[in-house]
């Protein structure tokens, strides 16, 4: 729009500037602040000296942090694979002109409206081996059935995966369904006339066309998994022991419980760099496509 007078020339910039300033401070300046703390000797209170990468060395020599990083990899790999597979499966089934589609979609999606604390609380109860699901199945006659993962240090992380998948599948489904609805159905008909079976058409023709949806889902789910904090805290409280420690819970405990502010800041910067490595190229490509489109 061409500004009609001087006022209209600077007014938009003036109105936008508080937001810009707030974000510059609360996002970018604060990141610099945290990065600085991670290079200082801060423990209980922030100190603005400089000790180089000492805190990072301490961080990477902490066994708990190694557990956290390993868990993040296990969790992210399983969480992404299962959520994407299940979400895509649901989206394809819902795209077959089924009855009560609206109702079913709502059922798969409602967990997304819940707090991770609520999800964690509910699943903690379901996975409780003494009174929960295990007991019900035992009483149904399958007495040998054992499902006590939440009490087993080497299996508890899979409980976090189950709860996270339960909460996030609807999200993957919604994005895949939007992608499927945008595909021209005549492609399916043409392939059917050539004699291809429906599952084969989906596998070889339709799924490859969902590339943009895959990209979005992978990026956003990775982001959810890196920052997942509340779910772990509510479901396992990072235990048994430190078996389900994640970078986010490690950061919180180091900073607010163990007076290791420097180590906490270093772990936060590690998390930030991981997220940025995924998100920045994604945003860059999205914005560039946007510019080409206009």
């Amino acid at each position, binding site marked *: 729009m061409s500004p009609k007078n001087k006022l*209209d020339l600077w007014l938009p910039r003036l109105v936008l500037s508080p*937001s810009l300033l707030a974000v510059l401070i609360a996002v970018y300046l604060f990141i610099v602040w945290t990065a600085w703390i991670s290079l200082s000797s801060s423990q209980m209170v922030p100190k603005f000296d400089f000790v180089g990468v000492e805190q990072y060395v301490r961080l990477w020599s902490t066994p708990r942090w190694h557990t956290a990083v390993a868990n993040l990899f296990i969790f992210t790999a399983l969480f992404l694979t299962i959520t994407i597979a299940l979400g895509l499966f649901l989206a394809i089934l*819902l795209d077959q002109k089924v009855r009560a589609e609206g109702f079913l979609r709502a059922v798969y*999606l409602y967990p997304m*409206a819940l707090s*991770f604390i609520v999800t964690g609380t509910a699943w903690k109860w379901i996975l409780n081996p003494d*009174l929960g699901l295990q007991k019900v199945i035992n009483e149904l006659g399958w007495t040998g059935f054992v499902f006590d993962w939440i009490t087993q240090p080497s299996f508890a992380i899979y409980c976090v995966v189950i709860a996270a998948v339960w909460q996030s599948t609807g999200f993957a489904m919604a994005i895949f369904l939007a992608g499927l609805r945008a595909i021209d159905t005549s492609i399916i008909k043409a392939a059917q006339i050539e004699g291809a079976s429906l599952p084969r058409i989906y596998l070889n023709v339709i799924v490859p066309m969902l590339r943009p949806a895959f990209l979005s889902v992978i990026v956003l789910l990775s982001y959810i998994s890196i920052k997942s904090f509340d779910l772990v805290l509510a479901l396992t409280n990072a235990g048994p022991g430190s078996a389900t420690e994640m970078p986010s819970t490690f950061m919180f405990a180091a900073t607010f419980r163990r007076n290791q502010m420097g180590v906490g*800041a270093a772990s936060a910067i590690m998390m930030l760099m991981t997220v940025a490595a995924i998100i920045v190229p994604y945003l860059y490509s999205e914005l560039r496509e946007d510019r080409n489109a206009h």
Partner: protein
Amino acid sequence: MRTEEHSARRSRQIGRVFIYGSLIALAAFYLMPLWVMTVTSLKSLDEIYGGSFIGMPKAITLEAWNKAWQEACIGTACTGLRPYFINSILMVVPAVILSTGIGAINGYILTKWRFAGANAIFGLLLFGCFLPFQAVILPMAQVLGRLHLSGTIPGLVLVHTVYGISFTTLFFRNYFITIPDELTRAAQIDGAGFFRIFFSVMLPTALPIIVVSCIWQFTQIWNDFLFGVSFTAGQSSPITVALNNIVNVTMGRKQYNVDMAAAMIAAIPTLFVYVVAGRYFVRGLTAGAVKG
């Protein structure tokens, strides 16, 4: 020929059975936790320890709901969830209104009053959507302390508003970009200024995206835990923090029915919004992924 047709129909039928079978089985899986939470919250503690998990309560009792609402202990204060529910409302209402309002005007500027560098500014704002908050909670805690806002509801309102701006700006920017520039240009020729065009031309068209933004912000802020647990303590906590405290009490016989009632109380506002306006909720969810 006939048998071929017959077998084609048969395989179609098998396909339909497979589709509905899978959809119903998975629907049961997704509904199960909600069901378990509901029935557990309506049972007496004796019935729960007597081994009833998934079945209907023998005798429905609201005792656990009553306890969760006004008797359960959060730390040393046995006030139930009620004060924390109120805290969450006092936090969520201003934060939603402020962040949505600011996002609306930002989106308007970034689409209808473009100036050099507007795209770069948008990119800077956008990264805020994906910021792992762990990277900013330390300095934020310091700043809230300096402003004498730590541990207060206004402090949480400020934090949620600032970190909400990125998302709300994205919503409105992607929406306003679809509104033809002719509309604003015509208003300008008629003599309308910057604010006049915003309030009488843009906002009236923006109702759907206002709803999307409010629902998204409401869900995010109501469900937040990290900011709540980092910046508040005791009586000023939001409901998610109080819920986590109730559940993690380790003394005495664990009151699962109270835990579930408390979880339901924390979940009801967002579930209600989802049931009433699910369509808009989905739009907010996919807005970060699918370009407007």
